[in-house]
């Protein structure tokens, strides 16, 4: 039996893909994850929570998670924020005023809607804020459309984070986190 199944839908989390994502984060040097968990990335969180290679902190809002990660960066960690794309609506102020002005970089993994597949209107409308917020802040981002690219994209994104000292967002659509239909 799958550990968790979406209500009324014949799909389940892809444990294999979640493991690939976590392994890619580890390979990129990420050692600190701050989050407001999201249904998309539940399995990723469980793997990270149980892995001593990561410090895992649950915040009460997405922007709080970013600020915690920002503090961890200042203290020498290589942080990542994992969140739902709807959270960008809470984060514009942090990204513009702290990440950009104070020049505090950050890797962000968020769920992604414009890649299609979102079934709920009430979810999609808030998640559509993600790209305008990132564009407005001048933050580089990309979508991870194929799990085979996870290691490369996460590694390259973290190179940009560390080399250019900027936030970078990787947006992950539903079909990466789930399998089935």
């Amino acid at each position, binding site marked *: 039996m799958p550990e968790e199944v979406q209500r009324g839908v014949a799909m389940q989390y892809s444990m294999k893909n979640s493991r690939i994502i976590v392994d890619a984060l580890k390979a990129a040097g990420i050692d600190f994850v*701050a989050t407001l968990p999201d249904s998309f990335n539940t399995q990723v969180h469980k793997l990270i929570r149980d892995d001593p290679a990561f410090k895992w902190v*649950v915040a009460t809002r997405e922007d709080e998670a970013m600020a915690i990660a920002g*503090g961890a960066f*200042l*203290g*020498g960690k290589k942080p990542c924020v994992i969140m739902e794309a709807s959270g960008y609506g809470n984060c514009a102020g942090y990204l513009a005023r702290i990440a950009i002005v*104070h020049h505090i970089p950050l890797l962000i993994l968020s769920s992604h809607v414009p890649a299609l597949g979102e079934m709920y209107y009430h979810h999609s409308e808030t998640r559509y804020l993600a790209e305008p917020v990132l564009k407005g802040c001048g933050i580089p981002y990309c979508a991870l459309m194929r799990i085979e690219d996870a290691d490369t994209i996460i590694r390259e994104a973290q190179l940009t984070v*560390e080399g250019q000292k900027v936030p970078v967002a990787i947006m992950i659509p539903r079909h990466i986190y789930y399998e089935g239909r």
Partner: protein
Amino acid sequence: MKRSEVVNIFAKKRTEEIVLTNIALVSRQIYATCHNDMTLYRIQMGYPLPMGIGLALALPQRRVIVLDGDGSLLMGLGALTTAANENPKNLGLIVFDNECYDNPGGLPSATAGKADLAAIARASGVANSVTSSTVAEFEAALDGALAKQELFCIIAKVERTAPEEEKIPTLPFDLTENTYMFLRALTDAGLIKGWREGFSRPLRTTK
């Protein structure tokens, strides 16, 4: 009590603590009284405490003190619950509570009404949370907190900004520069590796 009185007591007792300040005038007062480069100034409202949590978790060997205001803390009350659950013993929070939004003309904040920030902190799980209304109370609270390795929160009830406090000069650097100064200071103290050109190169495969 005046905010400058609280700042002066803090400045007198500051030793090797890393300090984060909020965006308010306290940033300029700290610069004028006890600046060192392990100080990150003028953090946007709502974010000083969560940044302090992340920094304290990353550097458990060094005390981190966050200087915040009532309006700023009220914007991010959830961080008190995160601080309590993570419980970094090297983190302290001092809140200058003047019960108003000082810059926009002193319009009242929630603490001018029924909100009690020390009670909120305690209910969030920060057990060592007190309110001080006099200079003597604040000094005793700070001495007690610094004597222990324990997460603490001190709410300092202060008056609105006095005219003479407004005359303190602005910071002689911008906030991006401040980050680089801060990271350099942590690097020189051996607390972090710091950053340099080509910082990310070790991630690249050389084969």
